[in-house]
């Protein structure tokens, strides 16, 4: 357990814990962003530069935007943003469910018997990563690419069908205006 590892772990877990505990949604979202940055720091500490920077670009740069926009666009007022458990029973059952998931994950990780590498981890260069992605792992890359494209197209389709009635009403207004143009005022004699 080296010092950098401890510090990064504390920051990541601490940010996540405080994010859970805070009532203000926006503060929670920003602390979650901090914990993602902590994960990126983990990758850096482990020597995976590419993954670390990709993590920052994707999570801190894009997913955080998604979360914040979603929070802001679905809450009507600032007071709505405070989140509190509705009752003790609900809080307890949430805790139990989360604890069960945590237990399963812990058990899985401990049971796989990951070997501790004898020496320093091999640094994988970006070139090797690219060759792996385009070679043995190309199938998963294509599947993920297709999935993301479908998601993007689906989002555009959903957004545009919502606008149909707005577009129709605009066309109606334009048609009415063209059919009966405004009368020019008569010059008073």
């Amino acid at each position: 357990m080296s010092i950098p590892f401890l510090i990064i772990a504390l920051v990541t877990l601490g940010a996540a814990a405080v994010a859970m505990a805070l009532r203000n949604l926006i503060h929670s979202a920003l602390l979650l962003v901090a914990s993602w940055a902590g994960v990126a720091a983990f990758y850096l500490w482990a020597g995976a530069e590419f993954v670390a920077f990709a993590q920052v670009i994707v999570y801190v740069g894009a997913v955080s935007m998604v979360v914040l926009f979603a929070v802001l666009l679905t809450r009507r007022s600032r007071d709505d943003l405070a989140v509190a458990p509705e009752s003790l029973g609900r809080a307890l059952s949430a805790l139990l469910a989360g604890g069960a998931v945590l237990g399963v994950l812990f058990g899985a990780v401990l049971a796989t018997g990951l070997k501790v590498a004898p020496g320093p981890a091999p640094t994988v260069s970006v070139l090797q990563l690219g060759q792996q992605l385009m070679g043995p792992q190309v199938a998963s890359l294509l599947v993920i690419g297709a999935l993301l494209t479908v998601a993007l197209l689906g989002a555009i389709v959903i957004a545009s069908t919502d606008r149909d009635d707005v577009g129709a009403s605009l066309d109606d207004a334009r048609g009415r205006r063209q059919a009966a143009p405004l009368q020019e005022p008569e010059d008073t004699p």
Partner: protein
Amino acid sequence: MSAAATTDAFLERAPQLLRDAVTGFLPEPWRWIVNGIIAIAVILAVFGLLFAFLTLAERKILGRVQNRPGPNRAPTPTLPFLKFLGKIRTYGLAQPFADGVKALTKEDVVPRDADKLLHFLAPVALLAFSILTFAVIPYGRHLVPLELDAAVLYFFAAGASTELAVFMAGWASRNKYSLLAAMRALAQLISYELPLLLSWVPVVMLAGTLSTTGIVEAQAGWKWGFIPHWHVLTPWGFCGFVIFMVSALAESNRSPFDLPEAESELIAGHLTEYSGFKYALFFMAEYFGMIALSGMAITLFLGGWRAPLPFLEFVPSYAWFAVKLITLLLGFIWIRATFPRLRMDQLTRFAWKFLVPLALINLGTTTVWSLMAGSTALQIARWPICLALVVVPFVVIGRTLSAGVAPRTYRYAAS
């Protein structure tokens, strides 16, 4: 001059020699730390001064374009026994320092119900991420602060994190107009993130590395003795360079994409509730972003610190970088003086419907270019093919997008 002669030339090695003279006596881990601190301090000092004089240059050039002088009245500070200093005419050179003093001494107004922590953190985070981007740009042959394998990705990762600070600024002001403007600014930043990233993918593809020093290495040499191998001098490189510069304009909120900070738009957008030093920090972050993106454009497309002609290699590499940087920054100012602001929907339309398809087609063009790198016949043939692949989509998409827009006709005004 051979490469060895230039790398050993005194002026080239002068920064290293200077640094080693100061820290050479320190033991090893301390020397690494102090070298790093010196690099950081030098970058902050140089780019801080560049920022100051860039604001002045912008105001004077904008003034001259608009038939007026820029600021030319700022006096030097005087003391009671040095009154003559106040009479010296500085032609505006003291203006940045006067502005700095003003920003520092202005009252820092924070709205009563504002989120104080976020309100304070937003300019700090913005500036921190903007400065982080300076770490991987090679300023000279031996002048890279940080040599990373995935340097280009690091640069854009740090740049993407600045968007978060914009949101924090708009949210923390507790002002619904600030929030709206922050949303619009975010939409702009995200829209132009995509063409920005897509425009350098061809460069990385052909250079074979994400490391900035590697990309500058890949642009070495001269074709026929006088045409440098810079990426901008190829069809796909020119297209990529133009897309990169336009997206850089939008990413740093610069005219004509300065909707977020224009005074006629929602006061000052997400900066409305900021005054004094925090406001100055926001502008510093914007200008640093501009400088960093120009530096990256130089690295990716303009050959970095390389001289344009072989006999000009005696000029040190950091001087060439400085010349190219100042040229690009003056280009930014020229563009600001010329073009009117784009509306929000025009902005996003331009990014998604024009720049992204062009950037994707550019990727294809680069592939064609690199596949035709065989015999000399192929190499000559690839020029017209790639030029066509760049120009035709530009014209076609341009025509399609401006299809319904004709020059305006007036009913009553005399022609």
